[in-house]
């Protein structure tokens, strides 16, 4: 059985493997033709800056989905991070960020415990958290919006949204690259990565092979909450205000879409980290394309829907 032959099947497999990248390339090509001034440095950094949220939450979502679960609470967790950080900003920026992250980790811990230990369905657990956590975020500031003032601490916070490294690179590159690298490292190099995929692929086998699936799931949901918290903080820094009602609204759906377009199987077991990155960039590119061509934004939604369906169709796995 060791004779290797390149066949039509193999070529189809290759096409499937790189389908997300091909889609992205096709989008870029299309823009080259139709969009004036598309290939400017400004456009590129624009895409990067705006895709910060979806890449961060997308990394967490990739992990969660490869355990066979889903986390629809990330948008609400972003809102919680935003509100808590503003509320505690008076104690300094670093303490504020730590408080925000700790608050969000609690949400992740609850999700992980319910899914991992009590074996409640992830969709239901995170749905409850999505409602509850956003509620908490609003209650903390009586449903009002936090606006940044012009004091020194607010200026520090805004620095996280608008600073340019070396005068050119948007600061969002830092969390984006870090989150991708760390996620890649976890999946490729560590025991945790193996355990995540094994848990998603066949939980029975995983337990009998000595894997502590409960701990694995708790870590995964806490990581997702952590990344959502960071995404929330960077989003607030960019906007300059924090609204418990609208911050991170529907972010979970963008993250799931990026994961799906990227080729990670929704039934768990196989994580495609760079796929998610490409998926996130593709989604962002659609928005920008529509904007730069003065097309009504609502069309972007329709295009996104088409891309999601096409991508998932190409990657569908033939079940036997």
């Amino acid at each position, binding site marked *: 059985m060791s004779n290797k032959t390149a066949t039509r*099947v193999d070529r189809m497999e290759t096409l499937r493997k790189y389908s997300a990248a091909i889609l992205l390339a096709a989008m870029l090509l299309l823009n080259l033709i139709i969009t004036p001034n598309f290939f400017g440095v400004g456009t590129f950094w624009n895409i990067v800056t705006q895709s910060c949220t979806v890449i961060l939450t997308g990394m967490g979502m990739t992990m969660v989905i490869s355990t066979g679960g889903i986390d629809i609470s990330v948008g609400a967790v972003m809102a919680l991070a935003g509100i808590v950080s503003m509320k505690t900003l008076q104690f300094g920026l670093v303490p504020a960020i730590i408080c925000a992250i700790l608050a969000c980790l609690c949400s992740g811990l609850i999700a992980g415990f319910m899914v991992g230990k009590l074996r409640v369905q992830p969709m239901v657990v995170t749905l409850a958290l999505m409602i509850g956590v956003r509620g908490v975020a609003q209650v903390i500031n009586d449903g009002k919006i936090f606006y940044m003032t012009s004091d020194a601490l607010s200026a520090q916070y805004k620095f996280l949204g608008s600073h340019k490294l070396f005068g050119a690179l948007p600061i969002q590159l830092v969390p984006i690259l870090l989150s991708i690298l760390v996620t890649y490292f976890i999946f490729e190099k*560590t*025991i945790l990565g193996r355990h995540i*995929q094994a848990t998603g*692929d066949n939980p029975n*086998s995983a337990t009998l092979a*000595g*894997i502590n699936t409960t701990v694995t799931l708790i870590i995964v949901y806490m990581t997702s909450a952590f990344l959502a918290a960071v995404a929330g903080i960077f989003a607030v820094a960019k906007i300059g205000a924090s609204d418990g009602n609208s911050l991170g609204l529907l972010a979970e759906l963008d993250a799931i879409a990026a994961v799906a377009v990227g080729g990670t199987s929704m039934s768990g077991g196989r994580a495609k980290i760079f796929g998610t990155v490409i998926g996130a960039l593709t989604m962002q590119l659609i928005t920008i394309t529509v904007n730069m061509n003065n097309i009504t934004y609502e069309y972007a939604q329709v295009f996104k829907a088409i891309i999601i369906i096409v991508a998932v169709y190409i990657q569908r796995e033939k079940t036997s």
Partner: protein
Amino acid sequence: MSREILLDMKGIVKTFPGVRALKGVDFSVAKGEVHALMGENGAGKSTLIKALTGIYQKDGGTITFDGKEINPRTVLEAQKEGISTIYQELNLVPFQTVYENMYLGREPRTSYGTVDRKAMIEGSLKTLGEMGIHVDVTKPLKEFGTAVQQMVAIGRAVSVNAKLVIMDEPTSSLDKKEVAVLFDVIRKLKEKNIAVIFISHRLDEIFEICERVTILKDGELSGSLGIEELDQLKLITYMIGKEAKQLERTKSGYNFDGAQELTSMKNIWQGVRLNGIGIDIKKGEVLGLAGLLGSGRTELAKVLFGATTPDEGEIIWMGQNEKFKSPRDAIRKGMGFCTEDRKVEGIIPHLSVKENMTIALLPQISKMGVVSKKAQSDIVDNYIKRLKIKTPSPNQAIRNLSGGNQQKVLLARWLCMNPKLVIMDEPTRGIDVGAKAEIEALIQELAGEGISVLMISSEIAELQRNCDRVVVMREGVKLKELIDDEINQDNIMEVIASGGNSEIGKEEVVHE
């Protein structure tokens, strides 16, 4: 016997990424014929069947069925042509009633357009009745045993006017009595001029029911003969190509009287399945657990491995009282468990051979949670060689391997941990003769190295060949221990039968 040809497959080719699974196979079945399709795991049997039933699309060759060329793209298309398959995992809906399952997807309508339940019930009763099966068809399917479920699947196939019924390992989870019923049904199909393709690893069954045998080997046709031209040894030779060696007991004499005890379980109770049983295993000993389905063998092994907790009882491991709360605890102490159902409780299907093999070992070849790729590759290459695992590469997803090779990978998963005890639950179920001999040889090799083995098997001959001592179980109690030469079919059956309480007759015991 020159009967009309029903199915004629010519030059079938099927390629998977990196593997040529079928290299131009010819296969033909006559009308009303019971035809065995044989071959080792990985020989291409299932692939051929899947190409026929539309699950896979063939890459080359022609299929002629009932006089016309067909090219089914889905199972439904194949079914419309008259080809029905009874799978190992039954494709029925357990929560629906028997009659609903019989008519799934082709429900008769009343004149109002609603589902005609009365017609369904009557039709089901008639079809099953003709097969000699009399059950309450209005009960959910899941309330019946595997055998009845299988009959329902066959009944369903018959009532869609199948001309060819394919049975993939239909007897693997049936007891003797149920197998007899199945064979009666097959004979009735034959009377109706329906052809049957029968896939099984049990040679006796092939000789009992089949008229013709086609043997595949490494994706090629190895032979196609009438059953009268074959005997068991010849058949095995066709399957594995080399001079078939008979499997025989290799050891004699029991040398463990003074040996150090590795572990013992005392007075274990759990639900209704384990009723105060105790066993002990010596270092380097192969201990067998014999008993019928439901006698508590697997349950006992799972307690020892920490996969379930007993209601009562104690476990002593190397002289220490231990409580294994999870498999992790047991693995740390040096245990490994090759489970009965590889698909559900063994393999992690989409991960590679490499990952599957080392999943339990990872903590030992990692620093700060980071896995050493080199150590991992070395170990994997070593075991692929040592256990002769057939895989295109260590990075191949394990689900693409044949059953025997999957089992070897799972065995390697524990061997690379340097275990003290390996539990093997039905280690050779669904595995062909060649791989079986290899796995049995490995078991002996392990014992020789001082590793203890706890072996559960429904095949008494297997226990006889491999075990130093056998504990015979029934209804969660130990009936008797047999040592060395005492281990044989007659003794074990006798012990099981005599262990029943007086109300239960012997006949019932055997078919528990």
